[in-house]
């Protein structure tokens, strides 16, 4: 069993600091890690008691969270020798999970997330225009080429996350890079709920390419502006989805609550 390798993985298994100890928070954390590929398909999770201790939640809470993930088809539990909880990376289940999160989160929280993303991503783009070397710029282009070449939505999201993180690294700022990694992890809980059409993806990639062009022509103001505008659009879209889910929430049939018990209860109240 592979455990705790890399900062992102450490973050996945770090104690939950919101103090609520809610099983939804545990499920969301693990779901996001599966979405981002930090925990991989088929990987065995630590034992219940170990995982509960790592996350600083009771074993009862953890069992609820695992039951939730099992219900969603993201975790498989086998009994007996060689048994345990194993991860199943199912794209549909991830979409359901982030729809639940989008329903539960408030629109002001989404706006706040957009604000901080614009601050970090916009500044990173501006500084990258001042500081990125030719090879760093070539790397950004390579990432966008890869983004255009892959079909699967989950992989597209991960590659796009790497684009934002690499812009921050090209800005020569460790702090901005770490902030961007954190923001992308948070975003990972939400974005899977809003699949993109091919045309939307093409628009996104074109917008990122314009940013890289601005970085290459050393136009920091433009690089920042383009980045902020794009993040503003993504945020508006997330808020629209959230508002839509909330308005429809009370009319939805019981089937939905069976899949997303906690999120639906939260949104309905």
């Amino acid at each position, binding site marked *: 069993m592979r455990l705790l*390798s*890399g900062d992102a993985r450490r973050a996945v298994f770090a104690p939950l600091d919101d103090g609520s100890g809610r099983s939804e928070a545990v499920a969301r954390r693990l779901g996001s890690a599966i979405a*981002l*590929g930090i925990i991989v398909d088929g990987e065995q999770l630590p034992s219940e008691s170990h995982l509960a201790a790592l996350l600083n939640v009771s074993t009862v809470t953890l069992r609820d969270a695992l039951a939730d993930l099992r219900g969603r088809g993201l975790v498989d539990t086998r009994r007996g020798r060689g048994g345990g909880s194993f991860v199943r990376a199912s794209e549909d289940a991830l979409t359901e999970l982030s729809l639940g999160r989008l329903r539960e989160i408030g629109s002001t929280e989404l706006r706040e997330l957009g604000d901080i993303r614009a601050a970090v991503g916009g500044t990173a783009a501006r500084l990258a225009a*001042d*500081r990125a*070397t030719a090879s760093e710029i070539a790397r950004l282009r390579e990432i966008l080429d890869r983004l255009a070449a892959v079909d699967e939505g989950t992989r597209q999201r*991960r590659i796009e996350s790497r684009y934002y993180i690499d812009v921050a690294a090209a800005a020569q*700022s*460790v702090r901005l890079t770490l902030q961007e990694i954190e923001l992308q992890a948070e975003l990972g809980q939400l974005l899977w709920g809003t699949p993109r059409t091919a045309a939307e993806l093409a628009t996104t990639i074109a917008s990122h390419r314009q940013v890289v062009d601005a970085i290459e022509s050393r136009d920091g103001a433009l690089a920042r502006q383009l980045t902020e505008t794009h993040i503003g659009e993504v945020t508006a879209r997330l808020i629209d989805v959230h508002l839509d889910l909330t308005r429809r929430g009370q009319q939805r049939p019981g089937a939905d609550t069976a899949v997303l018990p906690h999120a639906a209860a939260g949104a309905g109240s």
Partner: protein
Amino acid sequence: MSTRRPDATRPVDGPVDGPVDGRPAAQAATVIEGVVEQVFHSVTAVRDTLLAAHRAARERGEPMCDRDITAMRGRLLDLLTGEREVAVGMGVITAPGLLADRPLHLEWWQSEPDRHHPVRLEVDLNPHSVGFYDYAAAEWFVVPRRTGRRHVVGPYVDVHGTHRYLLTLTVPVVADGEFLGVAGADVPVARFETLVLRELGNLAVDVVVVNPEDRVVLSTSARSLAGSLMILDADAGDDAGEVRIISLPDPPWRIVVSPG
């Protein structure tokens, strides 16, 4: 001679009387080469340890595996915790596929400011993860592999790895023509700057060190910041007007001296 400083907050200095004193540049060159050689000395010792481990595996008649690498730890930690060691991280990174039981492997140890003992660097080696540490594509791995020579990379943000702002010094490890990986060491940019500035002492001029990608490695003045770009006029030669430039052979950095 003209310089372009995207990060600069004031224009390039006006004319001065006569060329600047070249001695600080020569002095800086000596100091930088001293520090770089010292780090490479340790890196060479790390390389020799990997070569010995590889030889031992071959004598057993087996392919190298994980435990041959982990057996190097004692030696690595001795080097890293040596009294005069400049590097804060050290180790070997194996060529993909070298180890029979692990496709990718970093045996990298780091001194942490708040810890007594070095800590092993753990990175995400799953290619599909958002946090994948794609070392086989990193300059510090690719260049020594391609050229067969030692290499200094940086300043750069070691994203998904140590998350430090670094200079990384690596050498290729080759046995009978087979590329086994690289041995290397990390020196934080800030630490390198402190070491060099201490040796240089007080100067009446500004000294800026620029890497081959036009990135400032260190500077004696806030007018040029480490990590920013300083694009030097290629036609200006090594001695033009009020600015004096000398080129180092290895690492191929330039030292720019201008009136303070």
